Every structure is written in C-alpha cells, then in structure tokens.
C-alpha cells in the first residue's frame, strides 16, 4: 500500500503532537535530574550545565547502603509477581464469566467493582493490624496480596470485555478442520485473547509499580520497601532542603523498566490481528 508524501507529512504532524504531549514533562524531569543543585531554580527548561551527581548519589554505597538499589529490585520483583498472578487469576475468572452460565456471576462482578471503589486509605489501618498479627508485615507477600486485591477488579473487567468478543465457535471450526483441542486453543483462541491479556498485564504492572499508600504503610525496611516509598527517605543537604534532583533522577531510572516492559508488550496487543485468525 503506497502512501503519498502528503500522508506522510500529515502523520508526521500527528505523531509529533502526540510525542510532545506525552514527553515534555518527562524531558522536564530529566532536565531537573541533570541540573546541579545551584541551578535547580533557574527557571530554564534545559539545564545550563549538565551534572550526573544526582544519579551518582543514587547508586553510592552499593547494594546495602544505597537508598535506591534494593528498593528498585523490590519494586521489579513485586510488580512482576503481582502481574503474573493477577493475570492468571483474572483470566480464569473472566473465562468463566464470559463463557459459562452460573449463578453468582453478577455478584462477582459487582463485588469486584465495589472493592475497586473503596478508598484505600481506610483499608490501610486494619490491613496493617492484620499483617502484623500474621507476620506478613515488611515482606513481599505483604505487598503482593493487597496489590492483587486491588488490581484484580480492573483486570477482570478488561478481560471479560475482551473474552466476550472472541468468537468461541472458531474452536469448533478448527476441530472440524482436524486440529486437536489443544492446537485449536493455542492457535485460534490464544491469539485472539492476547490483546486483552497484554493490556491487562500492562495495567496491573503499572499499578503495582506506582503504588505509594500501601508501600509506605506496610513496609518498614529495605527488605520490602519499593521505590515510591523509598523516595520519602531521600534527603537533601539538610532536613529542610528538598532532594529535588535525586528524586527526579530516581524517577527517571525507575521508568526504564517500564519502558522495557511496555516495548515488549505493546506489540503483543496487536499480534492477534496479524495472526490471521480473525474471521477466517
């Protein structure tokens, strides 16, 4: 399919507009992180002089002493585990709701929605008490479990919405064509489910990655503290000086895994379309 140069020009403008909208604040963050402390408030968008001090201070002291490395690892592991488990459980549930008849279907959906609607701040207190009693305070499961709870509703709803659209009869058609049941599932259904599954996965990952409320209240040491919570412990030169530069640097570094994760997954969202399984 050939595209005229006018089309290219129009699309370039559209793409540039989207990129500007999305990335200007990110560039601002990067700019703040590169400015030396004396120029933080110079009111300029780009730094006058570039300094990597903020980044160096993040990694100073290696694994034990640095305020950042251990929380970064905690964040990655906790978010990944949460995503895998949440997608697994949500897929099972969404499959049941989308394909099977059973009483309690609406109750589950309504209940999931109700859970997603309750203000997290008031669940933190009792959850803190529960976790201390159960010994889950300041542990990985101590964070993974609440993250599961509060991301499952969204994951379930997204997956139900997409599973509903899958033409399940294709499975039978493939069987008629001679495919084994498992082959039918793998080659026909799975690619069609992919957009929903990977969309939900990205949303769950970012939710677990970004959370602050639970992270600050249910952890007390680097054993399980994640990056958003660890930002509360960054110090500037004195207790009254805001560590603006190092917080910005931390935010930039912490976004890199997100970029990687999204880069990998965004292709899968449209993979289903190109698999050629849709409508024949």
């Amino acid at each position, binding site marked *: 399919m050939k595209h005229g140069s006018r089309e290219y020009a129009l699309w370039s403008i*559209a793409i540039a507009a989207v990129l500007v909208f999305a990335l200007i604040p990110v560039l601002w963050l990067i700019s703040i992180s590169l400015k030396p402390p004396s120029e933080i408030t110079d009111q300029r968008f780009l730094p006058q002089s570039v300094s990597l001090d903020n980044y160096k201070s993040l990694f100073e002291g290696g694994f034990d002493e640095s305020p950042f490395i251990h929380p970064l690892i905690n964040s990655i592991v906790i978010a990944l585990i949460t995503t895998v488990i949440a997608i697994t459980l949500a897929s099972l549930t969404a499959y049941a709701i989308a394909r099977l008849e059973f009483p309690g279907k609406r109750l589950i959906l309504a209940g999931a929605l*109700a859970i997603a609607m309750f203000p997290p701040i008031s669940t933190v207190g*009792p959850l803190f008490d529960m976790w201390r009693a159960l010994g889950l305070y300041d542990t990985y499961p101590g964070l993974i479990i609440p993250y599961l709870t509060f991301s499952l509703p969204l994951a379930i709803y997204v997956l139900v919405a997409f599973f509903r659209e899958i033409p399940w009869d294709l499975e039978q058609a493939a069987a008629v064509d001679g495919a084994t049941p498992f082959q039918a599932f793998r080659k026909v259904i799975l690619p069609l489910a992919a957009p929903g599954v990977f969309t939900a996965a990205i949303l769950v990952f*970012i939710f677990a990655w970004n959370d602050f409320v639970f992270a600050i209240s249910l952890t007390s040491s680097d054993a399980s503290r994640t990056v958003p919570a660890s930002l509360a412990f960054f110090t500037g030169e004195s207790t009254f000086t805001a560590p603006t530069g190092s917080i910005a640097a931390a935010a930039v570094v*912490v*976004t890199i895994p997100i970029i990687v994760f999204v880069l990998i997954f965004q292709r899968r969202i449209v993979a289903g379309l190109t698999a050629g399984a849709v409508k024949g």
Partner: protein
Amino acid sequence: MEASAPAHPNPPAAAAAGQRSRSERRLAWLLCAPAVIAMLAVTAYPIGYAVVLSLQKLDLRFPDQSEFIGLSNYGTVLSSELWWTDVFNTVFIMLISVAIELVLGMAIALVMHRAIFGRGVIRTSVLIPYGIITVVAAFAWQFAFAPDSGFVNNLPLISDEMDWFGGRFSSFAVIIRAEVWKTTPFMALLLLAGLVTIDGQLYEAAKVDGASAWQRFTRITLPLMKPAILVALLFRTLDAFRVFDTIFIMTRGAQDTESVSILGYNQLISRLNLGLGSAVSVLIFVCVFLIAFVFVKGFGARVQEGRPGG
C-alpha cells in the same frame, strides 16, 4: 465444555442438559474461586471494620473516650459545608479531566493504531506518563508551574509573576492538566485494544458504499468500541473521584481545591478521628457506587452479559 457437538439432533433433553450445567457451574466456581478469595480475604475485614468504626466516636489519641454513636458521624459530615465544597471540587475535577481524557485518548488511540510509521515508538512513548510514579509526576508539574522554580512563567504569553497556586481556578487548571497527562494513556491503551478488534473489512465495505471518514468513525468504530469505551470510562471515573496524590502534592488542598479523599485523610490520619474518617470513607464509597450505578444502568454497560451470540 464438550469438544464435539452432540451426535443426536435431539439429545435426551432434561437429564443431559442438567448434567452439563451442573458441571459447568462447578467448573465456573472453581475458576473464579482463587480471584474471589484473593479479593475478599484482604478487603472483607478492613471494609467491615471501617463501617463499624464509622458508627463510633473514636479518637485514637483519646482511646478511653470511645463510644457507639450510631449515625451521628454521618450527620456531622453531611451537614458540614466543607464536605459539600469538597464534593463540588472533586466532581468538577473529575468531569473535566475525564471528558478531556476521553477525547484525547480516542485521538491518541487512533494515531497509535493507524500511524503509517513509528507505531512502536508512539505506543511506548504514550504509556510512559502512565508509568511515571504519580507523586513524582505531580511534583514535577508543581515544580514547573511554581513561580520561583518553573519554566512555565518564562513562556511567552505568561506573566512572570503569575502564582498558579495562588488562586482557586488556576490551581484547578494545573491539577487537571497533571491528571490528564498522567491518565490519558490509560484511556488510550484501553481504547486501542478495543480498536484492534474491529475487522478492517467493515471499513472497506463502508468505503465502497460511499461513507465518509467521519461517518465510518461514528457508525462503525464508536458502536463497536462501546465495551472498551465503557470499561475505560467506568474505571477512570471511579479513580478520578478518588483523586488524592496530585492535589496533595500541588496545593495540599489549599485555595479550596481540597478533594474528598484529602478530607478523609485529614480526619483519619492527621486528627486520628477514626470515627469521622471512616464515615467520610464510607460516604466516598457511596458516592462512587452511585456513579457506577449511573454508568451501569444509564449507559447500558452490559459487561456482565452472558455468552456471546446469545
């Protein structure tokens, strides 16, 4: 589900059908059980506890003065001018940001879907705002708009001395700007996933029939995307009503920009008035429930429909 269609055209009706639906129900509950357990185990106690607390006068700093007072906390909250101001603020921010996000999100989703080059770059870049830690993003915006440290006041049409956070509606503007930037990707992502499931042949057929681009958009795209739009709108609205981080970082609720979540936080954490704070939380829940109710009934969000094709 049986892999093959029944051999007889008229299967022995009741018994076989009953058998199938019983095993179907068992399977369904088995599949749902893990998720349900995960959700209930964590929230049943806290939510129940919050409701119980809201019926008491309980101040953590004065533990021996607690007593059961029924609905009196709710009376205090609902008759307080502060509560209604905050509800207005919250609804104001919610309506405007969600509206902007829907339009922008749709536009961006279309670009992500149909761009003739650079799709990977666009899709990844668009999601970056959503992935940046919320408190840091809010802080970066605040820093940008602050008169003494930001670059915004240096832009051509804006006065050097403009104190964005010194007035109510200018503060709202910055808050909404930050919220929109942060969560439009959420909308765009869900709308994109909805877009990719639309069969391209429908567009071809419509073009042959002479439909214009706008007609194709409104007659084909929008209706087929209804489930995706509704899920996106529903969750985004619910989240928007509970906005906290952005406002807290930018103004701490000053200049009458306080949201209901900040109000709840102040009662619960600053004043340790667990009774009032829990009442505010329950009321927030009720408000959000009402919004969801309006969505499900009014817009016909039929997400809980049964089998497709039936």
